[in-house]
């Protein structure tokens, strides 16, 4: 009994020491930090001011969030204090914690358009639905004088989600500001391992479900059939037969995007949506960017009708791949063409946005 108690104490002490060691490792390997509810609602949550973030899971980066809890360099942050001209909104792609702070599109836009102040409030998990829901508050808080740039990684939107935003029942992404969960997530090792274990469990259940289903719905890079290569020669998928718009889809989309038009008109800034499709490469060496043509056309039309500038990055990505064999997603420690925008992806988007803004200003005699 005595031996058992002594061994039990040793296990507890060793456990605490192990958590300490793993926390040190997590602070270098993967540390996202703590996010809290954003009372100002321009995003659902923000990181703690000055939050340190480490990332070696997708790319390599070590960052500190700014005083507002967003990912902006000190330079961008200081410039923004004189007023914001271009506000960037979007998901983790815009948040850009996978790349160095001087490689993200916000920083690059400040360099390529030095006369304008660009500020990014990109935040993980904030897809186009969350962006639209938070848009009025973001405009009120940051008052961008010239442009509101929003990110979209999928033009095939979900009607249910759009309707939720339209009727005000969209769900905010929760944070855990209080209680045991809040305390536990401050221990880097606990947060890291909890995230990994939940991912493991979730993916295993998903794989079991998919294995049981007759048709595999996920697109798997390694399993593109030879036949797909034939239709993908120009790099764009054309599944016209499969992607008829559901009834009422276009009307809903029009209304959904009008949130942007109405609020930007009130603010006096021009809205831009840039779309960056997911790509893959084929056995014949060609690249292939997945977009269902009908949905893309519908999105383009809806943007046009709402006075939103739409930037489709597909051609830019294709050209870069064909010239320089570079994909906009993927890192040296992940699979190519998967995951978040890499430094080249941010560069391409920043260049394309710069070109679009310059052309817009030329067309309207603003320069």
């Amino acid at each position, binding site marked *: 009994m005595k031996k058992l108690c002594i061994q039990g104490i040793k296990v507890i002490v060793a456990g605490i020491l192990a958590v300490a060691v793993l926390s040190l490792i997590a602070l270098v390997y993967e540390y996202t930090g703590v996010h809290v509810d954003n009372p100002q609602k321009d995003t659902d949550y923000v990181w703690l001011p000055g939050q340190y973030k480490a990332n070696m899971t997708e790319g390599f980066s070590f960052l500190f969030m700014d005083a507002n809890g967003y990912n902006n360099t000190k330079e961008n942050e200081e410039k923004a204090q004189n007023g914001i001209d271009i506000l960037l909104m979007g998901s983790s792609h815009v948040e850009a914690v996978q790349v160095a702070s001087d490689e993200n599109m916000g920083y690059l836009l400040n360099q390529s358009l030095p006369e304008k102040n660009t500020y990014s409030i990109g935040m993980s998990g904030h897809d186009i639905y969350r962006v639209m829901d938070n848009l009025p508050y973001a405009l009120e808080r940051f008052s961008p004088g010239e442009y509101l740039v929003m990110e979209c990684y999928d033009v095939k939107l979900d009607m249910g989600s759009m309707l939720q935003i339209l009727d005000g029942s969209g769900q905010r992404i929760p944070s855990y500001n209080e209680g045991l969960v809040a305390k536990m997530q401050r221990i880097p090792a606990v947060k890291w391992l909890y995230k990994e274990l939940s991912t493991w469990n979730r993916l295993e259940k998903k794989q079991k479900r998919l294995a049981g289903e007759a048709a595999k719905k996920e697109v798997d890079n390694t399993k593109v059939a030879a036949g797909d290569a034939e239709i993908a020669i120009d790099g764009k998928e054309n599944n016209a037969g499969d992607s008829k718009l559901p009834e009422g889809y276009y009307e809903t989309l029009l209304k959904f995007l009008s949130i942007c038009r109405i609020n930007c008109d009130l603010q006096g800034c021009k809205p831009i949506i840039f779309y960056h499709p997911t790509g893959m490469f084929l056995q014949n*060496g060609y690249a292939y960017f997945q977009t269902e043509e009908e949905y893309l056309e519908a999105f383009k039309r809806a943007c046009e009708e709402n006075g939103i500038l739409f930037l489709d990055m597909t051609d830019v990505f294709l050209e870069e791949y064909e010239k320089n064999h570079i994909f906009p997603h993927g890192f040296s420690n992940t699979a190519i063409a998967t995951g978040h925008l890499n430094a080249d992806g941010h560069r391409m988007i920043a260049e394309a946005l710069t070109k679009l803004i310059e052309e817009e200003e030329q067309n309207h005699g603003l320069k």
Partner: protein
Amino acid sequence: MALNSFRFILLLFPILAGFYLLSLFCKKEKTKRNVLAGYLLAIGYLMVAETDIRFLLCLLAVTLITYFCPLLFERKQLGRTKAWVAFGIVADLVLLGVFKYFNFFYNQVEALFGGTKTNLNILLPIGISFYTFSSISYLVDVYRGKYEANKSLLEVALFIGFFPKIISGPIIRGRDFFESLNGLGKKNLYNFSCGIQIFVWGLFKKMVLADRLSVFVDNVFYAPKAFHSITVIWATLSYPLQLYFDFAGYSDMAIGISKLFGIDLAWNFNFPFVARTVSEFWKRWHISLSSWLQEYLYFPLGGNRKGKIRTYVNLLLTMLLGGLWHGAAWCYILWGGLQGLALGFDKMRMERRKKKYGRKDGKKSGPAVAFLSMVASYLFFAFSIIIFRSENIMDGFAFIGQLFTPHDGMIHLYTWSLFSMVCLIIGTLVMRRKTGFAMKMPKKVEERYFLFDLTSILGLTLFFVLCGLTVGLAYFGNTAFIYGAF
């Protein structure tokens, strides 16, 4: 249920708890042995049935063959006729042949006579390649008089259906396994301490190293034309590591789990990448298969006792069949043939050195030559398994062509490959101090691994850190065991 699945790891603890409780309650040695063996067998059968109940039928068939044939052979009243053993071996091979090779050979015959490809919808029972070979080894050993047939159906059934080694081996031998059953339910704490660590080391190899490498290797092998030559070379150098960590990781998991129950399984890998020749490589890689091929195929064919030419033919034939064992496809056969040729070449070289220096290993080589020999062996293995990895021979040659013709494309120098190489080097250097890379394996499982002292705070801390790193660094995707497909 894969050994590296979340579900299995959750289930392992109640399974272990049940085992330890049973071992506490059973006082009599013989009863304890039978109850625990029965418990493990039931777990194994449930796992196989959960995958597909039909697989259980195949397993039961092989079990009955393995049990009855040696007993019938040993019955003096039946004249100890080897027909029973021959029947057992043929029955095992027929089962293996039908499930694994029927479609392949049928298609070859059809192709010869100009027919269209017909494929029968035959499911490959899980682990059939491994347990049929275990069965054959047992039948032959009893026939050769190495030991008597085991009269316990329960133990023979467990020998065939022991769940940790069903999916990907190791291919266990009868005598070793039955002897190790003596350890069932004994020294539970000690076995738990060793077994759980070996299991976690195996998980680390599989989920952190092998699965991370698979992300990169699979992409490049799928579309080599999309990648720069440098990337293709990097993938070629990464694949042996992936294969090693995947298979060695599984073996470690199987050995670790077995140790939890007090059973010592044979080891399967002995630092294969320190091998300086192809011959040495095959004594260190997938040892349970290579030793099986040597004992039950190469030696019966005559080994090296029937002259030089016959020796080389025997080597080639053994490795061709060894390649075929891996799968029903020409690329496996060709890969096996390459290994056979390399072994023959090695043998020739050793004969020459023996003539010149009076010993097979020739003059003792310095560290630089030793290192270069290891690199050469690694490179040979890396290039030869391109064919093994490819969907078909033409794809394999196309891939090899990409290696030798400068080709523009995506440059992707995957960092996990470098990390894996560093882990391999560190692990090798650490174990060098422990085992000196001896060819002869320590009998005790725990002597083959770097284990922490779990009675000390430092040992426990390091073990918990290892567990944490295994979970934290693991890749969670669709990553079946490579050898599970064989």
